[in-house]
């Protein structure tokens, strides 16, 4: 539906006999004095956000460049002073009615918290993989999220939670792991990320009513965690085995169990759009856990896919079908995010297959030209399909 002015809409409703002339006049009068949405609000948010990021970066650079000249006490004072000044700025702008600016500054406070935690930790030579850092930062961000009720806080809290969980232990003994080890190691989170994604989506449905600002971010992060390893596995036949290869450490076992508990909780208590959603959650959890199942010390599905090209092709088709299924399911349950994720996921699978095969079969210049055309055609297809599907849900 194209955007209509309130006046046009009132006229259309009168023409269709849905609204009396008197009532239309009443409604029109009620709008007097109310400022029209002219797009400036978005502009302010964008400017304020960019401003906040620049200020944040500037402060961190200033602290960084003067760090060596400060003693520990000065360093601590600087970190706390920067935070308090930011909070005072946020409070003051809120008092004066600059809502968007104050929201940006409150968010900057949470960014300053993260910078502060790691700068303070550095004074005491704590490791970068000091997992308590992202964990404490996440707690601080969630607290501010509960106060401000904005999605951005949940969106920031999720990766921090993953980072804290990844650096916690890492299966290598006690409390620390290498920086990125948790994303690439068999002992880290890598093989269970998709299952964690489903658990996150499930958690979003459980908290939907009470903590509405969390659900969207939980869904988006959950979909990303579930989709990326699957999509990556379609690039080459050995990747599925590598991605889902797990050492089954105590941490991994606990996370797997907790993920299933959250899914079951969502199925029983979650505010889901339909009964179909309950079945879909269970099916997704089982489907995404299946590649983690090991037989003879390696992932069973991964081994099959890596050994037989036909199984690999079947796997690609299955992943593609899964994304199409999520589009269909999104339309059935009026879930825009699911439709978007499904359209995007299936398009990326097509793109990967194009680049996987074309460079082997075509001259590189033709492959590039055709690749560009495929991308353009895919973009047009995605835009049309997405628009059509989203419109059909209204």
């Amino acid at each position, binding site marked *: 539906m194209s955007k209509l002015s309130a006046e046009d809409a009132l006229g259309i409703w009168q023409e269709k006999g849905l609204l009396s002339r008197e009532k239309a006049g009443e409604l029109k009068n009620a709008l007097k004095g109310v400022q029209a949405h002219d797009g400036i609000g978005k502009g302010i948010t964008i400017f304020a956000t960019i401003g906040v990021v620049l200020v944040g970066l500037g402060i961190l650079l200033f602290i*960084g460049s003067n760090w*060596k000249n400060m003693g520990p006490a000065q360093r*601590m004072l600087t*970190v*706390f002073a920067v*935070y*308090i000044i930011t*909070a005072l700025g946020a409070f003051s702008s*809120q008092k004066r009615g600059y809502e968007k600016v104050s929201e940006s500054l*409150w968010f900057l*406070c*949470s960014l300053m*918290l993260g910078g*502060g*935690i790691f700068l*303070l*930790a*550095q*004074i*005491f*030579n*704590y*490791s*970068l*993989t000091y997992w*308590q*850092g992202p964990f*404490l*930062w996440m*707690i*601080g961000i969630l*607290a*501010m999220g*509960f*106060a*401000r009720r904005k999605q951005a806080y949940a969106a920031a809290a999720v990766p921090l939670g993953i980072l804290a969980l990844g650096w916690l*232990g890492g*299966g*290598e*003994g*006690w*409390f*620390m792991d*290498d*920086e990125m080890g948790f994303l690439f190691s068999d002992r880290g989170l890598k093989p269970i990320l998709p299952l964690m994604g489903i658990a996150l989506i499930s958690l979003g449905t459980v908290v939907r009513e009470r903590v509405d600002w969390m659900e969207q971010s939980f869904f988006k992060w959950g979909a990303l965690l579930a989709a990326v390893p699957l999509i990556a596995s379609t690039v080459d036949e050995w990747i599925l085995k590598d991605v889902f290869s797990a050492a089954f*450490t*105590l*941490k991994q076992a606990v996370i797997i169990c907790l993920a299933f508990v959250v899914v079951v909780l969502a199925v029983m208590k979650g505010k889901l759009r339909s009964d179909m959603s309950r079945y879909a959650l269970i099916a997704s959890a089982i489907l995404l856990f299946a590649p983690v199942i090991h037989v003879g010390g390696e992932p069973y599905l991964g081994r099959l896919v890596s050994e037989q090209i036909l199984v690999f092709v079947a796997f690609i088709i299955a992943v593609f079908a899964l994304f199409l299924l999520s589009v269909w399911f999104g339309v059935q349950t009026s879930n825009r995010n699911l439709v978007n994720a499904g359209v995007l996921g299936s398009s990326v699978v097509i793109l990967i297959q194009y680049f996987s095969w074309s460079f082997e079969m075509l001259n590189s210049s033709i492959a590039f030209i055709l690749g560009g055309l495929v991308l353009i055609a895919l973009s047009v297809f995605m835009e049309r399909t997405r628009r059509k599907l989203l419109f059909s849900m209204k």
Partner: protein
Amino acid sequence: MKKTFFAVGLQIAIMILVIIPPYIVRAIGETVYLETEKMDPRSIFRGNFAILGYKAAQGIVSQEMSEESRKFGKPVYVQFTTDRPAKFVSVSLEKPEYEEGRVCIAGRVRGWGGWNPDGSNNESVDFPQIAQFFTTAEEAKAIEDARGENLLAKVKTTKGCNAQLVGMELK
């Protein structure tokens, strides 16, 4: 607004929380001087720092203990004397009882497999909490060059086997 004030208070409390434990360790901890070992930096994300390994923690964990530690994610507890430089006493999976003239530091088995000059397969132990020393680029370079027997790490340790790297000193 009350909720926002609470969130701000909590965020400030969190920052304070970061600095309390190390101050406690520094205040009540016992000092130990550990000989540093030459190690290559393992990270590109840490800014100016020196990566530190410790001589007395090299090749001290048997394969059996290493496997158990890694399998169950258990820390290992290394006991040292309080001599300057400290000498290795024992390593175990359980926290040792406190003894006069001895300190313990919790660490993790490195997990690279053992290939020691003496031919043993014993694994080494890392102490992630005292494995890096943040400083200026120039000092970090000087420390990198001086690591080894000439450079001692001044470490504060508690009875609970926590450790804090306080500074670096020449032997």
